[in-house]
């Protein structure tokens, strides 16, 4: 109290002024608080909880009291479970089978759209983008009928192509049992994923290509570079930053594949469980076996794998980010 007596008298501010400075000072914190509250409750807490859970044995149905600390057991159980390894292998194969073609198709496609279509560019891009906005469940259900063995459109078309002269030999003579033969389940699922995401990647790459200054191409064609050379020496190197973004997104998405294999191959992963992905197996472990701890540990193993592969991708593609157009 004595200190305030010696302090210089502060200019008296009206309550309105004080309210104004108060709200100006704290408004931004209030405006961003919803995100952080939601993140704490539905983002951070669940993650911490799932880490805690992964060291416990717990059947949720039996209540919180039945939670028992068991150390690394959930992790070792997963790592010695052949089905877990099979699910990882399936996830890896599906991620590659569906990830690599996506980009191999999308990059030239974006280049072709950019160079040869001017007037209808928007329409064509929108068409290619269409699968990305439609429900995976709906899309997968459609493909299940198209993949049907005896009467599916795909096999009918393939048989038709087989009877063509000259190029007929490229196509199978027998109808392919897409969903009933363990060799074909993975390609079937992967092709749906490719079909769904090619447009998304094309749009990404197209926006990257459009950002490349056109005088580079002009200079190159003055120097006599062919379109192929321009693609190889201008477009590809300058697309690296976008490739990094696109491949990272594909990687993270593909390692968490769930809906396409779940609908197309069924919740057990189809014939021989060849399309049982890790997220599917985790869902099953939690939902049907009721083992929350084991499922949580599995999600952490998957998380570690995703993190490691993202780092590798970062090392390969992320290095030369400065060479980009920005």
């Amino acid at each position, binding site marked *: 109290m004595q200190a305030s007596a010696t302090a210089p008298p502060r200019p008296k501010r009206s309550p309105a002024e004080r309210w104004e400075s108060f709200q100006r000072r704290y408004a931004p914190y209030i405006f961003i608080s919803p995100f952080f509250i*939601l993140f704490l409750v539905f983002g951070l807490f*669940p*993650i911490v909880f799932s880490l805690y859970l992964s060291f416990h044995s717990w059947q949720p149905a039996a209540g919180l009291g039945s939670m028992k600390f068991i150390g690394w057991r959930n992790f070792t159980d997963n790592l010695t479970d052949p089905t877990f390894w099979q699910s990882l292998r399936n996830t890896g194969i599906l991620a590659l089978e569906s990830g690599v073609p996506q980009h191999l198709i999308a990059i030239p496609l974006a280049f072709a759209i950019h160079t040869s279509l001017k007037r209808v560019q928007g329409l064509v891009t929108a068409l290619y983008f269409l699968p990305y906005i439609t429900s995976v469940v709906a899309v997968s259900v*459609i493909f299940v009928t198209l993949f049907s063995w005896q009467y599916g459109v795909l096999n009918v078309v393939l048989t038709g192509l087989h009877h063509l002269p000259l190029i007929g030999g490229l196509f199978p003579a027998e109808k392919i049992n897409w969903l009933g033969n363990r060799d074909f389940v993975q390609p079937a699922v992967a092709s749906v994923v490719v079909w769904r995401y090619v447009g998304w990647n094309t749009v990404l790459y197209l926006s990257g290509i459009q950002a490349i200054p056109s005088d580079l*191409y002009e200079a190159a064609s003055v120097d006599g570079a062919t379109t192929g050379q321009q693609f190889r020496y201008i477009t590809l190197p300058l697309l690296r930053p976008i490739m990094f973004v696109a491949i990272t997104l594909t990687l993270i998405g593909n390692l968490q594949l769930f809906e396409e294999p779940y609908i197309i191959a069924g919740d057990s992963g189809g014939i021989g469980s060849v399309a049982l992905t890790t997220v599917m197996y985790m869902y099953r472990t939690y939902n049907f076996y009721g083992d929350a701890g084991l499922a949580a540990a599995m999600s952490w193993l998957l998380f570690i794998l995703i993190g490691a592969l993202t780092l590798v991708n970062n090392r390969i593609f992320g290095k030369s980010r400065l060479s980009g157009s920005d």
Partner: protein
Amino acid sequence: MAVTYTRPPAPAREGGALKPLGRGAALLLLVAGALLTVLPFYFMFVFATHSRSEIFNLPPPAWFGDHTPQNYDSLLGRTPFWRNLWNSLYLAVMATGTTLFFCSLAGYAFAMYNFRFRDGLFNVVLATLLIPNALNIVPFALIMQAFGWIDTPRALWVPGMAGAFGIFLMRQYIGSAIPRELVEAARIDGCSEFTIYRRIIVPLCGPAMATLGLVTFIASWNNFLGPLIIFRSAQTFTAPLALRSLQGLVNTDWGALMLGVGLTVLPLLVVFALASRQLIAGLTAGATKG
């Protein structure tokens, strides 16, 4: 340097255009690719008008049939499909409305204010984008169980009200499209901070709001894993769950199922037809500015 051009450089064609022959080939491939993209949708609508036995005929039907009314009756006999569509709509509208409000509010704060820890807090927002969904499935289910939110739609829209992607998108847009002087002027005129948001920021955010709204609506409408964990009864199912339950039946009525698929996809096709340019431009702006 003794470099001299013996002939004037040919007028450069824009963007390294192809020669006519290559151009024709590229065009052909593009059209073929576009057909491959659209055909499954075409068959979806065709199959929706045929009976199960007609769908699995040889050759499969390539044109519309007249079995739609029977498919419709069968669809509604197996699942309360209109109710399911309504659930999807309710969920999507709630998710979109709240996301637009909270994300634009937070985006405004990050774009227009200088406050302590701003950059650190924004980095936290961005970092949450990197957390894989898969990590969250088990605790998400358990938390909703604990809250008693199983079988209620708020379990799905409340956690997503203020997402990192939306905040990022809105901050980018507000920071680049709205001059700070405008905000300052309003402040001098005595507007409160929230009034500035409501009267100046929101009306000027149209394009970014449209993009974010579309993305949120589509993501919510198509969400499958979330509803799969939360909803337990046919009455609370969303449309994708209803489709899944139809497909799971031993004797699937594929005609009815296709009609359901069509009804689920059609609203999105309409929205996309109206706003595809906006959506694509907004999405790639967000993805490439990062």
